[in-house]
């Protein structure tokens, strides 16, 4: 019987390697990872994740920087002052720094 060549060699001819397969798979895998990464980024922008994060970490810090308390509100806040060093809950009361209780 005549010796037949291997299937790969029959298609591509002799002398070819299979290294292209790994490269192709790597490109596909990379494309998938990059696409997922970009999808998450775009989705986070669409859903306003940045705003949610901003609200969760920036607002307490802004209050902390301005009034010395993460839950503090200035006298000019629309909701009125809260946990402010000069805040008086009643006439004649005073507050020593950020102690939660109002001293008579």
């Amino acid at each position, binding site marked *: 019987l005549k010796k037949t060549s291997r299937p790969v060699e029959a298609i591509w001819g002799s002398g070819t390697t299979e*290294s*292209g397969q*790994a*490269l192709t798979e*790597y490109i596909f895998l*990379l494309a998938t*990872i*990059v696409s997922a*990464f*970009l999808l998450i*980024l*775009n989705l*986070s*922008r669409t859903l306003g994740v*940045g*705003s949610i*994060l*901003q609200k969760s970490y*920036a607002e307490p*810090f*802004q209050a902390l*920087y*301005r009034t010395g308390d993460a839950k503090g509100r*200035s*006298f*000019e806040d629309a909701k009125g002052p809260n946990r402010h060093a*000069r805040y*008086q809950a009643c*006439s004649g009361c005073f507050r020593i720094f950020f102690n939660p209780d109002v001293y008579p």
Partner: protein
Amino acid sequence: MKKKAGQSTLEFILVSVLFFSFTFFHFKLSVLLAFGNYVHYATFMAARALLSGGSSEAEQMDSARTVITKMLKGQGGDRFKAIAKEDGPGIQVGSSSRLNRQERSLTWLYGVRYSFKGKLFMISPGKAGSLKDQDNQLSLVSESWLGREVSDEECTTYIQTQSAAFELDNGC
């Protein structure tokens, strides 16, 4: 594939965007916090200048404005513009909108305020513009309310309204 050197380079590029964006985020936040302390000091020093007596209220306000301008402003605007920039009204010297001279608990709202904002991310995590501008900004307000002593002008005006005789010994 004859060489695999390109693979690690490509992976490094992808990872480095995230790595450097978070590294610089921490760096930028630290610098912004340090600058925030400096701004607190600047508003306090300006409020002290406003508190001190002067010939007139306008002079006291000018003194306060001079102090805070010298500390925070340069020839081309903001002195540390790489860290933070003036925001909204910027420097405000004088009374708060809540000042009420008739109500004792609201008479202290007189001083100096400075509003500024700084960027948090130097490199956007991901592709450019993945963060909205307002989400990348931290707006902060520093204020110091020390009140103001009456000026010589106000003191003299008050004395003139009194019927009793006064001797001016610069004790206004």
